[in-house]
């Protein structure tokens, strides 16, 4: 039942460029012509329905495979990223010219209407090329964020809107790991909100101060991302460096074990497991802001875990990783048991090892008060 979308002006422009290219005799697919054109400014009309093709937004410069941001689009990285089946992720942020995001100490920054967060999931291929899988867009409209999954074609030349998500077989080629082919799942639009929800409203997860507070090389030496955002004029209200929070990098073994473990739990679990999140009815809050050991899962009995308990009594049993439901569920593949519920088909070996080491290091036991 295709709804007759009113094509936005942007698609018309893309078509026009494509048409011009063809007329001029370039033997290029329309997208290359369009995205390769300097004339296509990145962005979108906040009132227009989603574009059918990713190229219509103009977020990439040149060949898509290069994953290079267009002028006016900034790359960014997180201190500790979410595990996504060993996919590599390339993140861009775009704000309409002349607009700014407002800094927030704990939550995602308050972005202006017209902002786009662009996250592309890909795997390295054995031939050195990239296997582009999907690009997830978060578009800030007048009434809030809109989540749109786009699925790349085999050639990695164009991605098409996939509101209902998709499943495809991927054989990841990860250095040092021998991974079997598996069913990669592109989440559907509703599943996006399964993680991106704060008090029932759609919210970004990554662009928070504590996730962005790290250095990144924009081409002329590494600088702090928050400083760069401020200098680029897209962030207001940034406090002094000493007042900015920072999550630990869970992959950095030189940092404190406790901070690494909490960082891992926050970025992998804390978007749902927080008082305002979709998993709040569990009473388990896995964020760096949680101070109550019971809500962090220490000696906490499960509420509605069902078979997810694995026959174990406590979410985290200090000193006893193999008696801890949290670690059990990180290692399971049954969709009714595994955690996170969405976006993980493979076991994250390094994450499991980290949480195991952390729980083993915790003192105390679970006794009646």
């Amino acid at each position, binding site marked *: 039942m295709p709804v007759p979308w009113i094509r936005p002006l942007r698609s018309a422009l893309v078509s026009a460029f494509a048409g011009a290219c063809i007329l001029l005799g370039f033997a290029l697919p329309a997208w290359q012509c369009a995205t390769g054109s300097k004339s296509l400014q990145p962005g979108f009309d906040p009132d227009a329905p989603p574009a059918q093709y990713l190229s219509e937004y103009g977020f990439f410069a040149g060949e898509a495979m290069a994953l290079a941001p267009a002028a006016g689009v900034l790359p960014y990285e997180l201190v500790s990223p979410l595990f996504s089946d060993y996919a590599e992720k390339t993140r861009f942020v775009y704000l309409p010219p002349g607009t700014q995001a407002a800094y927030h100490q704990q939550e995602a920054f308050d972005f202006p209407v017209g902002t786009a967060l662009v996250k592309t999931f890909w795997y390295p291929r054995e031939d050195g090329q990239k296997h582009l899988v999907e690009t997830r867009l978060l578009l800030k409209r007048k009434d809030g964020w809109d989540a749109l999954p786009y699925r790349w074609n085999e050639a990695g030349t164009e991605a098409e809107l996939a509101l209902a998500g998709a*499943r495809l077989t991927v054989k990841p080629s990860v250095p040092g790991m021998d991974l079997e082919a598996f069913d990669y799942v592109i989440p559907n639009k509703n*599943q996006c909100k399964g993680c991106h929800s704060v008090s029932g409203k759609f919210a970004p997860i990554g662009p928070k101060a504590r996730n962005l507070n790290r250095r990144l090389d924009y081409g002329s030496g590494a600088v702090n991302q928050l400083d760069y955002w401020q200098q680029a004029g897209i962030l207001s209200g940034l406090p002094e460096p000493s007042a900015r929070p920072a999550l630990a990098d869970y992959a950095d073994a030189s940092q404190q074990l406790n901070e690494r473990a909490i960082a891992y739990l926050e970025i992998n679990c804390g978007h749902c497991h927080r008082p305002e999140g979709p998993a709040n*009815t569990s009473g388990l809050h896995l964020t760096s802001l949680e101070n109550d050991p019971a809500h962090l899962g220490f000696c906490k009995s499960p509420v509605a*875990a*069902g*078979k997810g308990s*694995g026959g174990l009594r406590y979410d985290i049993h200090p000193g006893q990783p193999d008696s801890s439901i949290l670690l059990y569920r990180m290692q399971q593949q049954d969709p009714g048991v595994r955690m996170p*519920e969405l976006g993980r088909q493979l076991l994250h070996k390094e994450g499991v090892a980290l949480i195991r080491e952390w729980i083993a290091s915790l003192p105390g036991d679970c006794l009646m008060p």
Partner: protein
Amino acid sequence: MLSPACSSRLLPLLAVFFFTATFFSCTNTANEGPIAAEGFTEELLMERLISAVPGQVIMLGEGEFRFTRSLSLDGIPGVTLAGAGADKTILSFTGQTDGAEGLLITADSFTVRDLAVLDAAGDAIKVKDGKAVTIQRVRVAWSGGPKAANGAYGLYPVGCKGVLIEDCEVSDASDAGIYVGQSENIVVRNNLVHHNVAGIEIENSFFAEVYGNTCTENTGGILVFDLPELPIKNGHHVQIFKNEVHNNNFPNFAPEGNMVGIVPAGTGVLVMATRDVDVYDNKISNHQSFSAAVVSYLINQKPYSDPAYDPFPDRISLRNNIIERQPGAGPDSTRALGVLLATLFKGDTPEILVDGIVPPDRALTICIQDNPGTRIATLDAANGYAGLHLDPSPYACTVDPATP
């Protein structure tokens, strides 16, 4: 021809019923015929749910509809998902590889009716934070029968305001067939629940009426629980009346660690913590462990730290029930509570149990009267059962009717 979408005219009635007025007219509702099972792909229904307009009725025809991923509805109010009958329209999740529920609903004024959800990887139908949820004539089962590997809950509204569950049949859930948690204004009526660990469970909820249900062949028939360390707790005002609660002697198959794992096979009605619970006019028969019990959360001996949580049952009324014991059979020796009962009562457990654990600073009101031919045991569980007695006189009282 009347548009099927116009059955959404019924929604205002429900909305008024639940005092959560959300009004939808029939305008802007596309008139689409039922989706046919033939040639069906799961993406089709998923796309319909994503692009639904408020008040839309999505109809499914007869036949089997197969899914490998969760179905979900988010944020669009007033949507109805309707089949052609609980035995005719089958949503099968056999072999589901993605998503922890069959249906996950995060939207207001949602109705699901006249269909079956089979073999979900986790919970069959979960509704989170919805207002005015209606589930009617829905069947939920796992085709392998009762197993620990089945989903925890069949019908699972949580954090909802306004819940109506009626004329449904739920079996094989590894926790509760019908579970309403952290919700308020709840009606659960005229359902058949069997071969679940718990038939019906009302947990951390306010203002619930559970009546006209048949609960049979579960481990426990009806549970009213309140648990600590949850955002919504200290549940109150739960009425359990005119239910048929029979033969709930099925071996407990809940995975250990779950609260419901403590329930011994042969449990009729179990009230734990919670206040203002009124259990009346029920028929409760043939339970091998006990017919009805009123206990505090402390009896579990599970650690918790939640100063705002009240672990004690209070203002409980258990009256005018017809209670018959299972002749001959002893309590379930696979659960600590069953072993305890066997030890304390040597095979002749009284029909009604009260744990007798009381707070140091106040008296609890627990009234148990007019349940003909029953005995009441007070266990004195906090003192090593030293003060165990069968004196009914502490319970000869009445609680003001718990009217929502």
